[in-house]
C-alpha cells in the first residue's frame, strides 16, 4: 500500500487518465473529486461491499423455486 500526504486542492494521478482531487477537508471528512474515464466504475467502498455481498448471497441462496403470485 502506498501512503501519501495531500493538502486541500492537491491531486493524485492513477495511471494515465484517473485524477483524484482533494476538494475540501473539514474535520474528519474529506471531499474528493474523481475524474475517471466512463468505463471505470467508481463506488463508495462500503456500498460496493454491501451490494457485492447481497448479489452473491442472492445468487447462492440455494432457493430454486420462488413464490408465484404471493398469496396466503
Amino acid at each position, binding site marked *: 500500500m502506498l501512503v501519501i500526504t495531500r493538502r486541500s486542492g492537491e491531486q493524485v494521478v492513477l495511471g494515465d487518465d484517473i485524477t483524484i482531487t482533494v476538494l475540501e477537508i473539514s474535520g474528519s471528512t474529506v471531499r474528493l473529486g474523481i475524474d475517471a474515464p*466512463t*468505463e471505470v*466504475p467508481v*463506488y*463508495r467502498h462500503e*456500498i*460496493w461491499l*454491501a*451490494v*457485492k*455481498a*447481497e*448479489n*452473491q*448471497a*442472492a*445468487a447462492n*441462496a440455494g*432457493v*430454486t*423455486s*420462488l*413464490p*408465484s*403470485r*404471493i*398469496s*396466503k
Partner: protein
Amino acid sequence: MQIQSTRFGAIDIADDAVIEFADGIIGLPGKRYALVAQQEGSSFYWLHSIDDPSVALPVTQPWLFFPSYDVAVSDEDSAKLGLDAPEQADVFCVVRAAPELEDFTVNLRGPIVVHASRRLGRQVINAAGDYDVRQPLFAHVELSQAAPANSTTPIAASGV
C-alpha cells in the same frame, strides 16, 4: 442459443432477450444475462447468466412491493445505458430468497436498470435516498397484494 442452467436445465434464450452488462454485475461473473420467468404471471424473475450456467439472481420489480419507491440514476449511469427518458428503463431489484417468506429481503440501494429496447443493463447505486440493501420484502405489503411482474424487457423463457 441454449444454456444448460444448473437450476433449470436447458433453457432456450432468444438472441434479442440477452441483456448486456458492460461492467458486469458487482461481485458476479460474466456480462450477458437474460430474464427468465419460472411461472407465467410470477412477481419474480431470475436474471440468469448466459456465460456461467450456475449463476442466476432472483429479481423483482420494486413497485410491486414498494409503490412509493424512488430511483435516481446518475448522469454517468444514464449515459452508459443510453437512457434519454425514464420510460425507456426497466428497474429490477435483487431478491435474497429464503425458505420462509418473511425472511426474503430486497436490495433497494443497488437496483438493476435496463434500457428495455437496447437491452443494456447496469447495477447502479440509487441516488434517490438512503435505501437499504437488505429491506424485508414483505414488511410493507399485504401478501396478497403483489401483482405479477410486467417487464417491457424481453423475457428469455418462462415456465422453466
